[in-house]
């Protein structure tokens, strides 16, 4: 845990860097936001019984929600780049909270489409890594990978606590109370927590990135810090260079492979005659390894080249896909949980940190938001394509093989990123040099 320079407190103890409190606060609102989104699934059977509607009708709500979240992330990311992450998270959380409470009054699928599919899902894009990441990268530089990993792992673990919580609230009371409780937690605890603790950047508190010396008594200015050779003032400029395409391609494949497994996990287990007990235990194992894996990757990513870890994560996931093809039923299930679990979430902090390292933090929200959108659309396309393939071939071998091949490609592409040449961790250039070369480029074009 990093400590703050010059902050020892009145008992001589080193003070924990304030950035970690920000991570804790963002962890909580991520938990609520993800809980509301993920918890939707547990109410489906209740709505089907209460309202006499089909699963397909409620599925449409989820589909609209996926699209809304995908579209909203680059928008909120862009807003966070301009106005800071804090106000975006607060407004998004408030809208999401009010929408969540309003779901309790819904009695038709149309109401769910409007409130969950549009309002809550769109607002949840403002509490995603595209906006929370914008805050984290401004507070952390040396331990950026670790900080992002803790936040991401927190969301994962939090979801696993919050979803059962909602289910038990429904069992004890009813589904309407469960939505009111979720919205109230966001309103009564989440928003005050962000207001009290989170600041968009350390300069807002007279602090410096990574807990360095306070800038209050200095003339130093964060805007004068050195940047990497590919630093961009405008997000559109990033797309004229290779790394953003390499990172986005990997993230697109990440979407393909995670969403397809997410949807087809139960179907595949059933097609292999795996018992529900075994499948549930394997899922629990995968979730546990998932949270541990992302922390380990975060620790390593602040010491090693991030692109090597990212490439390794995709290749490991590719091996996990191969186990689904070549190993028999239960053995494939456990192997996938063990191997795939290590790689499931680790792409998020690595991609966000690499994007910030290469292009600077100024446009991270927009760039990472666009990457998240490609992730969502890759996932949506894969759900459809995997379903078609299963119908056509009668097994998941072909779609899993396609998944393994795309992961191999993502691994190679990620490994080909020239991090030592493009990242601010390895090459630091005075900001004025980049800005003057940008002006020259604009003038000549």
């Amino acid at each position, binding site marked *: 845990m990093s400590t703050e320079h010059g902050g020892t407190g009145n008992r001589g103890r080193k003070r924990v860097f304030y950035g970690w409190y920000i991570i804790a606060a963002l962890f909580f609102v991520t938990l609520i936001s993800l809980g509301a989104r993920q918890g939707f699934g547990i109410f489906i059977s209740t709505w089907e019984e209460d309202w006499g509607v089909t699963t397909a009708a409620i*599925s449409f709500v989820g589909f609209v929600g996926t699209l809304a979240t995908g579209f909203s992330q680059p928008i909120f990311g862009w807003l966070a780049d301009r106005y800071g992450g804090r106000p975006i998270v607060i407004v998004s959380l408030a809208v999401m909270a009010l929408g969540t409470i309003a779901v309790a009054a819904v009695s038709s699928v149309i109401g769910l489409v409007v409130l969950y599919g549009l309002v809550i899902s769109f607002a949840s894009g403002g509490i*995603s890594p595209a906006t929370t990441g914008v805050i984290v990268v401004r507070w952390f530089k040396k331990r950026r990978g670790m900080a992002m990993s803790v936040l991401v792992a927190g969301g994962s673990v939090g979801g696993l*606590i919050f979803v059962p919580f909602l289910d038990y609230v429904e069992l004890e009371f009813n589904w309407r109370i469960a939505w009111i409780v979720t919205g109230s937690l966001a309103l009564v605890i989440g928003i005050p927590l962000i207001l009290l603790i989170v600041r968009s950047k350390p300069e807002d508190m007279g602090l410096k990135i990574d807990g360095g010396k306070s800038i209050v008594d200095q003339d130093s200015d964060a805007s004068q810090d050195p940047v990497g050779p590919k630093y961009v003032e405008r997000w559109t400029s990033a797309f004229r260079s290779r790394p953003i395409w390499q990172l986005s391609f990997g993230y697109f494949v990440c979407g393909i492979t995670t969403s397809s497994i997410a949807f087809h996990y139960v179907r595949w287990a059933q097609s292999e005659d795996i018992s529900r007990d075994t499948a*549930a235990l394997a899922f629990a194992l995968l979730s546990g390894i998932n949270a541990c894996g992302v922390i380990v990757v975060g620790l390593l990513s602040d010491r090693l080249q991030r692109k090597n870890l990212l490439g390794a994560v995709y290749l490991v996931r590719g091996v996990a896909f191969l186990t689904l093809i070549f190993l028999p039923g239960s053995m494939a299930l456990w192997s996938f949980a063990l191997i795939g679990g290590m790689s499931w979430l680790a792409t998020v902090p690595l991609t966000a940190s690499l994007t910030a390292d290469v292009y600077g933090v100024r446009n991270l929200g927009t760039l990472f938001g666009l990457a998240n959108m490609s992730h969502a659309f890759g996932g949506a396309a894969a759900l459809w394509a995997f379903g078609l393939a299963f119908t056509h071939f009668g097994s998941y071998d072909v779609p899993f093989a396609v998944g393994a091949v795309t992961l191999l490609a993502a691994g190679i592409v990620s490994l080909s990123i020239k991090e030592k040449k493009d990242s601010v961790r390895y090459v630091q250039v005075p900001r004025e040099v980049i800005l003057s070369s940008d002006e020259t480029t604009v003038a000549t074009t």
Partner: protein
Amino acid sequence: MSAANGPLLHHSEPIDPTLWEWLSTKIDHVLGISPGVMVFILGSGIVLFPVIVMVMVWRRQRTAGDD
């Protein structure tokens, strides 16, 4: 089952209702605690976490004031 109801909680996908049914059966079998008690246990954890964070920040700011 919905095309948007993924179970693996990679980002923000709703949990698969079939998988959740399997999981909750397993949890109930292992723990055997009533829903009311589970609401209290999990709810306490969810509420206590931000309260503890707020107290820590408050103590930190008070200490900084003493310095």
